[in-house]
């Protein structure tokens, strides 16, 4: 046979990214880069009022603005049956353009279509809207009273959206009562926003045959196609959704937004392509926010630190519409992961959600459906318990960890953790950071009155939605898919139902296929985001790409290999049973010298296939039997300036266990990025509303993104506990650092302040809050 072209071992290699050459040369292809002949620009008129009746809309001045072609309002859409669109899980509906009244500040009121970006903005400014202000409900606790009914359009005449609970309430209450030690803490995980650098946007275009080509910043293009079909009534085969390069998503680009529907309606009505790109202000004020969970956390324990019960009661603020991105059967997502890495004999969790006059949302900011809120609750709670017990938080965690031999571990709130080694991961972290030396240093500093803190978070995540018996969006089960075509010369194309927004699928998918087939990953083209070509999938969010699409891909590759085996047998002139896949090629069992490479087999599949089916391709749909459960041990070391309240993160170590690692360089990059987001959430990000319903964080001067100056240097390490049910043992890592780090940061700050008697501090932990906490604690001490 010919020279050996086998590529060995593509898995676990820090291969440079295949997508990068276009990005570093300014040749990316983002939605706003697209331009079509005759294209119009759309701008939206938004409400300055958080709650008001619309007495009238006058578009006459706007229509006089040079370049303005058309203006549509909620009434126009309602007349066309397009007034409302279903929210993510289909349990509520959202106004496309305000009908009768507005429910949050910056709500979409009218859409203006014009020949240029500037003319569209001028036109939007010229639309006159008469509002009659209504009383504003700016928090869920006021909402709870039902004094002002926000959604009279709904059947249930209440602001209460849902009650969800899991676990044994009575048993948990009894266990808490009987506990020797017990802590209770209200924690608010504030409303924040993913704020990807590329705002949301789209270009809607109908071709000469009336088929819609919809270019959009979407993390889930197939779901968009189905949703657009359901909303507009356009048959799904007449809709082509293309999600090109996406400038970051972090959950923000999962929901379908009103602007998209308006652009499609405009393109249809006017008969010209329509581009809509939102501004940063529009992004922060109207698209999916994250979190906003007010959690009451109670933990019971024996005097020796053995935990006995966990109870978490949450009040959730969902804004004006229930657009939370959670599967339909799980309105509080996977909040049941709140027992974390610990063996609680009993637990109970409940969530009640309410409407308010705020932007709708409740999406996952780099997190798997409310896992971040849950992880924060338990990891913060464990530290408060350690403080109550006078015990080292490390010791408390070690004592209550699920043990390696307990996996697969059935958690008391209903999950089956696939695999893990929590003790090992923690030990690696303690060793690497030098925990004992840090404790010694801290004791010395405390003796001098200096404030140094060490914060630990040993979280367990649940990702990879998911088994179809549990999870769906709009009724569509959350499986995923992959398709592989190997060309005659041994290169190939791969398509999946996922959609990269920076995660590097073009590289990691090529590595998986190359590993399974012994081909060159440089010649495996990965294409995603085009619904005309990619198999149906649910998209990329909730760290689900590797657990679902990645699994589908490995299985599709194995299907290709099985088909290739038949051709290999033909080439080697032996029976199929005598051919084995070894050392990345086919060889006759026991005769390593008699072998063929996949490249040779690929050529034969088109030129010399014998009696076998020609071609070499496979498609695989994959419904995961379980979620995957990545875990990690994070340690933050901070110094707090007693006089100014300034917190300096001196060190941060993340030891992650995400199972098998496909590309360590990409995994490290994901961890760096997620930690920086966790850092932002812990210390600076909050979407605040004043009591009148004004959004106070509408742009990057008020809603902060950490710069290179504030961002700490990140240290990373790994342990590897493969997932037993994933074809290559991978678990997904994108979100772990965002899920696990906020608690580590806050635990560190509270630890630093603990000599003053501080037990909790709410995020974002701003210098101002820390300074006040120090001042108040010192005043209290002075009195006693």
């Amino acid at each position, binding site marked *: 046979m010919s020279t050996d072209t086998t590529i060995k071992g593509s898995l676990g290699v820090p291969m*440079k*990214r295949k*997508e*990068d*050459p*276009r*990005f*570093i*040369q*300014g*040749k*990316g292809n*983002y939605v*706003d*880069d697209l*331009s079509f002949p005759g294209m119009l620009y759309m701008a939206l008129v938004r409400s300055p009022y958080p709650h008001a009746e619309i007495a009238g809309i006058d578009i006459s001045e706007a229509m006089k603005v040079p370049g303005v072609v058309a203006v549509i309002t909620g009434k126009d859409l309602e007349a066309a049956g397009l007034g409302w669109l279903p929210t993510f899980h289909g349990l509520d509906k959202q106004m496309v353009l305000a009908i009768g009244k507005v429910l949050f500040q910056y709500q979409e009121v009218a859409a203006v279509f014009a020949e*240029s*970006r*500037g003319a569209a903005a001028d036109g939007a400014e010229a639309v006159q809207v008469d509002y009659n202000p209504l009383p504003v409900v700016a928090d869920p606790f006021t909402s709870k009273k039902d004094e002002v009914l926000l959604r009279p359009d709904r059947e249930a005449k209440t602001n209460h959206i849902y009650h969800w609970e899991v676990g044994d309430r009575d048993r948990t209450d009894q266990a808490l009562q009987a506990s020797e030690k017990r802590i209770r803490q209200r924690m608010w995980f504030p409303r924040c926003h993913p*704020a*990807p*650098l*590329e*705002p949301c946007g789209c270009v809607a275009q109908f071709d000469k045959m009336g088929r819609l080509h919809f270019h959009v910043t979407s993390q889930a293009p197939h779901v968009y196609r189905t949703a657009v079909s359901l909303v507009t009534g356009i048959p799904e085969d007449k809709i082509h959704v293309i999600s090109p*390069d*996406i*400038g*970051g998503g*972090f959950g923000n680009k999962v929901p379908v937004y009103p602007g998209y529907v308006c652009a499609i309606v405009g393109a249809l009505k006017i008969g010209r392509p329509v581009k809509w790109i939102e*501004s*940063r*202000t529009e992004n922060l004020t109207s698209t999916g926010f994250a979190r906003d969970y007010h959690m009451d956390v109670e933990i019971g324990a024996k005097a020796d630190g053995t935990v006995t019960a966990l109870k978490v009661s949450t009040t959730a603020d969902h804004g004006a519409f229930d657009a939370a991105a959670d599967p339909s059967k799980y309105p509080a997502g996977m909040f049941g992961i709140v027992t974390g890495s610990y063996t609680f004999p009993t637990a109970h969790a409940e969530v009640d959600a309410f409407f308010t006059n705020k932007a709708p949302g409740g999406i996952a900011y780099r997190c798997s459906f409310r896992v971040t809120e849950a992880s924060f609750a338990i990891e913060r709670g464990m530290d408060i318990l350690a403080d109550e017990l006078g015990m080292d938080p490390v010791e408390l965690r070690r004592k209550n960890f699920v043990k390696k031999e307990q996996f697969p571990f059935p958690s008391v709130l209903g999950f089956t953790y696939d695999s893990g080694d929590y003790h090992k991961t923690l030990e690696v972290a303690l060793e690497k950071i030098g925990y004992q030396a840090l404790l010694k240093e801290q004791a010395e500093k405390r003796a001098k009155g200096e404030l140094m803190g060490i914060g630990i978070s040993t979280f367990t995540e649940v990702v990879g939605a998911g088994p179809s018996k549990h999870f769906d969006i709009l009724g569509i089960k959350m499986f995923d898919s992959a398709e592989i075509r190997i060309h005659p010369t041994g290169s190939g194309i791969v398509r999946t139902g996922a959609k990269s*927004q*920076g*995660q*590097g699928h073009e590289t990691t998918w090529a590595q998986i296929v190359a590993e399974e087939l012994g081909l060159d990953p440089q010649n495996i083209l990965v294409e995603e985001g085009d619904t005309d070509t990619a198999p149906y999938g649910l998209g990329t969010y909730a760290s689900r790409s590797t657990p679902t699409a990645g699994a589908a891909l490995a299985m599709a590759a194995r299907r290709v290999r099985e088909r290739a085996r038949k051709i290999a047998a033909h080439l080697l002139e032996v029976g199929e049973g005598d051919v084995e896949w070894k050392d990345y090629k086919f060889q006759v069992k026991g005769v390593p010298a008699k072998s063929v490479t996949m490249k040779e087999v690929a050529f034969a599949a088109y030129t010399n296939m014998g009696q076998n089916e020609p071609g070499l391709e496979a498609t695989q749909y994959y419904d995961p039997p379980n979620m995957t459960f990545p875990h990690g041990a994070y340690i933050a070391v901070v110094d707090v300036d007693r006089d100014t309240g300034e917190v300096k993160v001196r060190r941060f170590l993340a030891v992650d266990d995400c199972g098998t690692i496909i590309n360590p*360089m*990409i995994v*490290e*990059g*994901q961890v*760096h*990025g997620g*930690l*920086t*987001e966790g850092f932002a959430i812990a210390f600076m990000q909050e979407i605040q509303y004043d009591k009148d319903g004004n959004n106070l964080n509408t*742009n*990057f*001067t008020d809603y902060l*993104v950490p*710069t*290179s*100056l504030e*961002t700490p*240097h*990140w240290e990373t390490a790994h342990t590897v506990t493969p997932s037993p049910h994933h074809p290559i043992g991978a678990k997904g890592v994108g979100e772990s650092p965002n899920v696990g780090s906020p608690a580590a940061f806050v635990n560190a700050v509270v630890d630093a302040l603990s000599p003053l008697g501080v037990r909790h501090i709410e995020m974002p932990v701003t210098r101002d809050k820390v300074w006040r906490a120090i001042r108040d604690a010192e005043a209290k001490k002075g009195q006693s």
Partner: protein
Amino acid sequence: MKVSIKVNGVQYEKDVEPRTLLAYFLREDCGLTGTHVGCDTSSCGCCVVVMDGDRAVKACTMFAAQADGHEILTVEGLAQGGALHPLQQAFWDQHGLQCGYCTPGMLMTSYALLKHKPNPSDGEIREELAGNLCRCTGYNNIVKAVRQAAETLQAAPATK
């Protein structure tokens, strides 16, 4: 109004609205979509280009008219004769990008930085890049990339 701006060595003579921002002039009038826009408040730096050889400017905060008669270098003009600029190579080598949206601005700010400070410390790099936001990388690898590029450029001063 008429403006005449040299972009990546090519002279563009265009008739634009006076309010046209340089960022949109580059993207829409010159078709150079590598320069991105990510905010409304001059905060994110996705739009940074280099003016007159060594000055990093935010193209969303300048009118095209203000660049009239000047020379602009955008990310599309970095690679020369099919060879990547050492900064581009370094961002690729060090995994200094993920979604790629901030990358052009990062590259152009770094380009101007290295013109002024050929051998910056990590602290100086972090300080100079503080006007460019990145949501994906956490900056560690970007700092490494700029350092690598500085070393490459110092080793081969003939390279631009």
